[in-house]
Structures are given as C-alpha cells and as structure tokens.
C-alpha cells in the first residue's frame, strides 16, 4: 500500500471549479461510472454554498487526493436539522493515510459551525469498506430504516 511520504502535507479546502476534472476522474476510477454532468451539478449546488452545503477536497502537491460532500437537511420525517454526508472518496493509491478521516473531520467542523450537532449518512448494505470507515469514526445505526418499492408492482 503506497503511503504519503512522511513529510507530505495535504490541506482540506472548499472545492474549486478547477478541481472538478480531478474529482470526476477519481469518482470514475472508484465507481466505474463516469458522471460528468452529475458532478458539475453537485458543484453548482454545493460548491458555492458556505452555510448549508459543503464540497471539500483534500489536496497536496500531487493534486486532489480525495473529496467529501455534505449538506444540512431539515425536518425530513420530523427530524431536527442534521448534517448529511452523501459522498466521500479517497484515491485508491493513498488510502489508510487518514485522508478520509481529515475530510470527515473538516465536514463535521463545518456542520458544527453551521449549528447542527448530528451527522447522518446512507450506505449500500454491502459497502463494507465505507461502512467500516464510518463505524471507525464512531457512527452507529440511527433511528430511521430505508424502505423502497418498484413503482409498477
């Protein structure tokens, strides 16, 4: 497993339009589904907001190492406003170097600053790696259960 050189510093900052190509490249590498328009839409929605939506990137001299996106959602099914984290990805070559933890912590700090005290996410049941990551950050099952149905059944 490659590691960041001991003296490699990375910073977490809001995503800029110039980061989008790298974000799309990373996401395509991880999910094998190129979604160019989707990421431009996410940037339009969250990249320019500073109080209720956050799109952060981790960067070093080597470029974008990872990113995280989250927003504050209020009163869904009676829930108090809470921070939703709906995407987090770190370059496969640079994992297990605490980049994910730093992105998560930076997003939590933004949520806290915006006045929310709880963070939520939703994951595929078989997404074991991401689930292990969120568990390692102290997240536990919340009070909601996700249900779904084919509309034409």
């Amino acid at each position, binding site marked *: 497993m490659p590691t960041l050189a001991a003296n490699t510093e990375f910073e977490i900052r809001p995503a800029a339009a110039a980061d989008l190509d790298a974000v799309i490249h990373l996401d395509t590498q991880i999910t094998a589904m190129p979604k160019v328009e989707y990421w431009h839409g996410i940037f339009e929605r969250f990249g320019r907001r500073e109080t209720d939506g956050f799109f952060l990137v981790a960067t070093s001299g080597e470029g974008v190492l990872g990113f995280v996106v989250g927003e504050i959602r209020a009163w869904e099914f009676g829930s108090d406003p809470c921070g939703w984290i709906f995407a987090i990805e770190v370059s496969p070559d640079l994992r297990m170097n605490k980049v994910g933890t730093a992105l998560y912590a930076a997003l939590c700090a933004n949520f806290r600053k915006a006045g929310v005290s709880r963070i939520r996410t939703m994951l595929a*049941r078989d997404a*074991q790696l991401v689930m*292990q990551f969120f*568990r390692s950050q102290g997240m536990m099952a919340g009070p909601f259960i996700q249900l779904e149905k084919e509309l034409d059944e």
Partner: protein
Amino acid sequence: MNLKMATRHALFAILELADHPRAQISSAQIAEKYAISPNHLSKVLRTLVCKGLVEAIRGAGGGYSFVGNAKRVTLLDIILIFEEIGTPPSHKQEPGDDTAEGQALRMVMGEIDAISRATLSSITIDTMLKISRRTPGIGSAVHAL
C-alpha cells in the same frame, strides 16, 4: 438476536486480548473479568488458537495474546466460527415453508438477517474497542486487568 454462549466468550476473549496487544493474559483472568466459566472459555480459546487468531504461550509468564489484525477482523468473522447468522444454506425444510405465507415469512426474516450481517461485518475489533471505551459498564462488573 442472541449469540450463543461460546460466541460471547470468544468475543470477550478477543476484545480483552486485542485491548492489551503486548500482554500475555491467562484464561483465568479473562474468565474472572467477564464472570464466565473457565472451562468453557478454555475450549473457546483452543478454537481461536486453531483459527490463527490467538496464540498461546505456555509456562510461567505465559498466557494468550491476539495475533489477528484488529483493523481487519470483524465481529462477523468471529461469530461465524461458532454459529450461523440467520438461515444457513443447509437449512432443512420446515412445515409450511412451501406456502406463500412460509415464503413471505422467509423474506421478512431474510431482511433482518441481511441487516444483522451488514452490521456485524462493518465493526472491526479495533472499532469495537473504541465503542467499549465510550460505553460505561454497569455496577461492579467492571474490573481492570
């Protein structure tokens, strides 16, 4: 969902050993802390040694130590050594299974099993130790080794 006694013993033993990575801990110490039968625990520890998760050092100053990777081994990995979660593939037909009601019941129970598995496979020993540190024990059953 209830775990079998052997499974609980195994989880306690692994957590105790993984929490003290450089120590050799005797089965009597673990049995005392968790108020469990030393005989049962010894059998469970033998199984964990066979599975390569625990090492036994004999003689004075000896004891057991965890030799797995606490950041990779999950609760599910340990539980599956001792019991199935949900309906095993070898499950024999039970009366009513072929009916629509029997199948519907299977489907609903299957949902619960899938959630149990996902939960148990998402918690590594390392994460479980973090959860334990945040969780206070109740009353006098809390001992330090």
